[in-house]
């Protein structure tokens, strides 16, 4: 599966999409869901929670293991994808289409430090070795 070029990425396998209103949608990458396997439980943050960059803010659990999801940038949670809680398998089917939560960045310059698709591909390539 190719890595979408309109998104930004973290080394910890989150994807980030900047929305028109300046908020960012956050999900976990196709690679991450592939590593985890069948997803059975998602724990989302609450609207109004604030997180620092790289702070744990959600949990994705597959049949196999639990994985923390980290805030790709600092900010406040402005929306969560509640229907995903009842259908965590959507992440397996379409990881890049299944956002977990939206953040209002408190320091938008942090976005510039995230990886682009090519940079994320390099991370994946290096993990293979």
């Amino acid at each position, binding site marked *: 599966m190719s890595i979408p070029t309109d998104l930004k990425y973290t080394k910890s396998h989150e994807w980030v999409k900047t929305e028109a209103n300046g908020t960012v949608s956050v999900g976990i990458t196709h690679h991450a869901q592939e590593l985890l*396997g069948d997803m059975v439980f998602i724990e989302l943050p609450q609207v109004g929670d604030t997180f620092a960059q790289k702070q744990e803010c959600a*949990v994705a*659990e597959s049949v196999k293991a639990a994985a923390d999801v980290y805030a790709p940038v600092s900010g406040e949670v402005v929306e969560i994808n509640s229907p995903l809680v009842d259908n965590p398998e959507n992440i397996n089917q379409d990881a890049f289409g299944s956002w977990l939560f939206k953040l209002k960045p408190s320091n938008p310059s942090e976005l510039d430090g995230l990886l682009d698709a090519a940079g994320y591909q390099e991370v994946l390539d290096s993990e293979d070795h």
Partner: protein
Amino acid sequence: MLKKTPLNQTHREMNAKMVDFGGWDMPLHYGSQLEEHHKVRQDAGMFDVSHMLPIDIKGENTRDFLRRLVANNVDKLTIPGKALYTCMLTPQGGVIDDLIVYFLSESWFRIVVNAGTADKDVAWILKQRETLAPDLEITPRRDLAMVAVQGPNARTKVWQVIPESKAVTEALKLFQSATINHFFIARTGYTGEDGFEIILPAEEAPAFWKALHAAGVAPAGLGARDTLRLEAGMNLYGQDMDESTSPMESGLAWTVDLKSERDFIGKQALLDSKVSQQLVGLVLQDRGVLRSHQKVTAQHDGQEFEGEITSGGFSPTINQSIALARIASEISPDDEVNVLVRDKKLRVKVVKYPFVRNGNVLI
């Protein structure tokens, strides 16, 4: 260098996701662990269990040797082909391994031990032979492969593939086995479903596996094996029991024979010990997933007790998280119990396991 079973190449041809499992290169799944799980519960699936080790014990005194070596009583094995589930214990009563003993003839018993403990088991058995029965011939059978075919339609599909086996295996009861041509076929398994475990020459395993696949048996990996066995309430060596726990604290008291006069290694320690812990089943009432080593807290008669999950996970059949946990013997299904998951106290219900048997949810 990872160890490989005779089916390693076949797994790769079937696009298995391979993982390092205790030094063995084994299939985790072939696409979806959940689909494989459901296939076994509803139809038929197959597992490569060739990493486990059959050990043949031959000689006139084999039964006497086993009377001393294992905690269950091999005198229950009177009909050739009959199998017995048991533990092999340390003198202190700890579990060296759990295993199945097959009675083939008075001068030939076969035991099948776990993969991760195989080397330790062989060393222990050889050491016991020195003092108990030096004439016995003990042969680890790495030349054999093992395939478990499990599910409500498993036996029918095996008969499609080995038609000549039907006549001799149709009447087999649970925990009985028969030999036909190169196939040693036992009506045993680790999923809570009907089925066979088949031991055959390593070189024949790939063709047999492919024939089963052509007959509609789904390849299933270690992932599904673990969720199925947990639902079936079957203990996993290294998690639910080990050398630091006795079978009495691991839900395996039913496999220990203390009634007969027979003395076995570990018996005195079991008689001298006070059993203060038990293995119970847990069903999570809140959202989340129970995992091994999570802490269990319970209240009984105003007293606080602590325990630990030994095996936990998501149950695909029940669609809730379940677990086995070791906790004080005082705790019963009526008590208030919690599990600590990432600093949150989640509510769990204490139940008797198994959770699922023959496709039916029992809790």
